[in-house]
């Protein structure tokens, strides 16, 4: 752990572990999420990427320390398969805003919801039923729902895993836009090309451990050490536990 001031960090993990029954999903993770980071968490299936993401988000029980230095850090998360209520596109965003901040007026929520839908290109579809949208549109709606609450950190759990190339490109373009606006993003992905295109930092998970945490350019440079190097070469066998 570096000695940089905590104020520059949004979330700090120290020896944090997550277990599900007898399975250790995350083992003694130590890392920081700093403002304006765009972190890609990569690793084989079952390596603990999603568990680390949920640990950082604070929605999973853990041991060790998860510390949020600033008093109020607004967080949002976009899941691989977003759960959308059987309501209109607009009402899904409105409800997300209502859950995030009950003090915003109804008209304020409406304006912010429409702004978020315009941001992801769904403004014209706001009165459609959310569940009638295509997979790519549903993921963009989930991004709008996350973006609308103006989070300090947006967590993304394999946001393009189930999308076709065109929808994948749309989502990546939105994520690049969010990052350019200064939003902090932490994304799990098994798509190394995506990590290379979008992230500024790459965290490699292996059997529940943070094996490598490097700037993107360094991670993809020749000679990446240990099992991360094997993973990059496609020589690391998949682990089904953890």
């Amino acid at each position, binding site marked *: 752990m570096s000695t940089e001031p905590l104020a520059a960090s949004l979330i700090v993990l120290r020896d944090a572990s997550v277990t599900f029954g007898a399975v250790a999903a995350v083992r003694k993770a130590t890392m920081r999420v700093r403002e304006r980071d765009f972190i890609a968490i990569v690793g084989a299936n079952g390596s603990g990427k999603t568990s680390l993401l949920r640990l950082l988000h604070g929605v999973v029980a853990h041991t060790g320390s998860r510390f949020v230095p600033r008093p109020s850090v607004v967080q949002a998360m976009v899941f691989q398969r977003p759960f959308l209520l059987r309501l209109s596109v607009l009402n899904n965003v409105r409800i997300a805003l209502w859950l*995030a901040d009950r003090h915003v007026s109804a008209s304020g929520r409406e304006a912010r919801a429409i702004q978020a839908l315009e941001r992801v290109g769904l403004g014209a579809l706001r009165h459609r039923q959310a569940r009638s949208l295509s997979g790519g549109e549903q993921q963009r709606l989930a991004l709008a729902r996350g973006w609308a609450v103006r989070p300090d950190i947006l967590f993304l759990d394999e946001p393009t895993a189930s999308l076709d190339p065109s929808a994948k490109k749309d989502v990546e373009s939105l994520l690049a836009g969010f990052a350019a606006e200064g939003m902090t993003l932490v994304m799990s992905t098994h798509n190394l090309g995506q990590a290379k295109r979008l992230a500024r930092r790459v965290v490699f998970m292996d059997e529940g451990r943070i094996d490598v945490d490097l700037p993107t350019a360094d991670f993809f440079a020749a000679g990446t050490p240990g099992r991360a190097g094997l993973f990059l070469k496609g020589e690391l066998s998949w682990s089904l536990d953890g």
Partner: protein
Amino acid sequence: MSAMTESFATAFRLIVHADPALVRTVALSLAVSGSACLCAAAFGLGSGAWLAVARFPGQRAVLLSLDTLLALPSVVVGLVVYLLLSRSGPLGSLGILFTPTAMVIAQTILVLPIVAALARQVVADALREGGDQLRSMGAGAFASALLMLLHERWAVATLMLIAFGRAIAEVGAVMIVGGNIDGVTRVMTTTIALETSKGDLPLALALGIVLLVAIALINVAIVLFRTGGGSLAVETR
């Protein structure tokens, strides 16, 4: 013409000419069972949603009891409500025995477990799919459960239809606490029982047909609303 055919013909005439006695009986039945379902919805949907997310000692016993109450015999409910509301009972001073109010109370008790148990199941199933994501957005446990009632509103409408069907078709409880007083507490089922015992099959049959048609119409209305204008219920413009 056989007795069966003659009964159908008479029943048809009674319905077509809107026989006043028939209309009065049908209206009272719909009012009593509709009120009972509204009361059961007010208490049952919220408590069902709460039971889907609450964790407390003895929860399994409560859920087991609730499931057992699904098969609550209507005559037992009628008897208990009768004892409570009779002049010597703890609520006898209210003076509501043999009134439609007593019938609403009895039917509410009868359908409340159905509403609560099925709502709990609907919400629990929905939470398994999306509970984590709602909590990630900042929803508390009970808020998540209430949102799931909204999300599953068509399943909720169906369970309310089941409850209404149970209420309007039961005869034991309303017979005991209503007394089957002509023009006051006589509803479709008690009239059918009475007229059949008297041998007046046409009126009994007419009421039986109306009973079926009423439930079918409600079902059709739900299906039409669901397929034709599903978004209207929650759309704001």
